[in-house]
């Protein structure tokens, strides 16, 4: 737009003045450019040194065998070949994917359900109460949550099994059984993260235009029909965003299994990030660990791509 204004102005100015102006404008542009570079310099330096170069370095490292002590040795694709042949690696990525899908589905459904219910409340205080309540778990660190949830889910002394058995149900081996441990990871993560999705959806539902809802009501649409045919399509871009963010986070699940089960029982909750931590920082196989990290990055990129492709069909942009 500013370019247009400039040309319109120059048209009105005599040629001699125009030349002076052009020189002045060039000098001004150079000065503005220098100012721009100066302004971004700090951020560029930090992002370059601590994010961009490490990405390249990680790609490079994945082609080496390096135990930190002896010099790195180039091994080509050997790390990736070893990775593909290693049953425990495949199992770990499988565990990660199952946990992530469980977490994302439960978090989205629960977050959406709660947001719809809270959005129907008329009184501001009740909206504020529920919003604060569902946000509260996010104020604790994942480490803190993993610690107290570990006690609550304890098979022998935990509160959950106490209540289950006191109403006549069998105690569940939450953390001592492979499936139980995976379910617990999903529940603990969703318990803490659902407030994030919930707040996003409440904001989106509030911005659904009133006249659209009135039009739906006039056409005789009941609450369920309005929800599935009007509200959900209208907030589908937010649902996509929540799904992408939740999936990227869930694929990196580390704190909860690391603290609650140390990846166990056996390797039932050894997620890709725990496996990478063990390979890199416990076994000092930096090259192999980098290869795991690169594969994790690729899987996340592919999943995000699939989500955006699926969104083309499902997401409704106004």
């Amino acid at each position, binding site marked *: 737009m500013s370019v247009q204004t400039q040309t319109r102005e120059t048209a009105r100015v005599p040629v001699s003045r125009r030349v002076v102006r052009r020189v002045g404008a060039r000098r001004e542009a150079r000065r503005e450019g220098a100012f721009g570079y100066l302004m971004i310099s*700090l951020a560029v330096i930090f992002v370059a040194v*601590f994010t961009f170069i490490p990405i390249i370095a990680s790609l490079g490292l994945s082609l080496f065998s390096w135990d930190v002590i002896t010099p790195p040795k180039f091994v080509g694709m050997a790390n990736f070949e070893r990775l593909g042949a290693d049953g425990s690696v495949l199992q770990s990525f499988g565990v990660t994917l199952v946990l992530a899908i469980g977490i994302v589905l439960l978090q989205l459904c629960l977050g959406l359900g709660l947001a719809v*219910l809270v959005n129907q409340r008329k009184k501001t205080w009740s909206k504020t109460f529920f919003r604060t309540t569902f946000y509260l778990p996010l104020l604790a660190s994942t480490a803190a949550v993993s610690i*107290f949830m570990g006690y609550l889910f304890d098979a022998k002394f935990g509160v959950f099994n106490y209540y289950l058995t006191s109403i006549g149900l069998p105690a569940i081996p939450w953390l001592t059984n492979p499936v139980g441990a995976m379910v617990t990871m999903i529940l603990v993560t969703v318990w803490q993260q659902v407030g994030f999705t919930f707040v996003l959806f409440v904001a989106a539902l509030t911005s659904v235009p009133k006249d659209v809802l009135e039009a739906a009501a006039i056409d005789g649409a009941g609450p369920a029909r309005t929800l599935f045919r009007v509200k959900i399509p209208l907030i589908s871009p937010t649902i996509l965003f929540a799904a992408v963010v939740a999936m990227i986070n869930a694929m990196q699940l580390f704190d909860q299994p690391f603290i609650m089960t140390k990846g166990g029982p056996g390797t039932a909750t050894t997620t890709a990030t725990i496996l990478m931590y063990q390979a890199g920082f416990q076994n000092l196989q930096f090259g192999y660990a980098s290869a795991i990290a690169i594969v994790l990055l690729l899987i996340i990129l592919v999943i995000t791509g699939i989500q955006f492709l699926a969104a083309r069909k499902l997401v409704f942009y106004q």
Partner: protein
Amino acid sequence: MTTELVTRRPPIFKLGSVVGVVLLIIAAIFALGPLLWTVTTSLRTPAEAFTNPPQWLPLHPDFGNYAAVFQQIPIGQFFVNSTIVTALIVAGQTITCTLSGYAFAMVRFPGKNTIFGIFLATMMVPLQTIIIPVFIIVNKLGLSDSLASLIIPALGSAFGTFLMRQYFMQMPPELGEAARIDGASHFKVFLFVYARMASPAIATLAILNFSGFWAEFYRPLIFLQSQSHFTLPLGLVGLQGNLGTGSISIVLAGVILTMIPSVILFIFAQRYFIEGVTAGSFR
């Protein structure tokens, strides 16, 4: 029109509303229950902490566990460490991201879109993918096992830059142009015209960084070795490891202690916590 519609189907509407409230209350019990249990159990004596049924009301609160936390671990030191790390990262990112976000939104310079594109691309990359090279760089810089190893790599942020840029993009360029004609330098225009208008976005970024880095576990676990440098989450897990399942009420007292700063901040800046959730979405 609306009154007619409401009168047409009142019973279903009422019933749906009641069911909705009941479901919300059940959800609220599940959300608050574990937190309440943590508070009340931290007030029971270690001997009775793991006895069921749980005591939901602290009838005879025993604050001894809180004193015991201070005896078991240098939690005061962890607190200071966490505060230094979080405060410096918040301050650093406020500066670097405000400067760069403004430049990407308002200043014309060659290569702007390319550089910003690279920034956006790095946002997708998980921390785990870059952690080994960052670990190596940190060691090469002689920062291993120090608070600086957590702070310095986090002083710039592609996401923070993106967030600030989005906010500056909404501001009218005319204001700056007018100030330029009045003879203000580029930097003065930024500082006195735009930066002061950006305080809501700065607050949102600060709160996001506070929540993220106060609770951070992964980098401290990898970067720190000596207990004297531990941050709160790492120290807390250490406390749990030391005590085992013997005295969980002391561990839970530690959990509550680490949560207090977040809760206090939330009470005063709730708006920016909520804003922080929606800030990342492309609006």
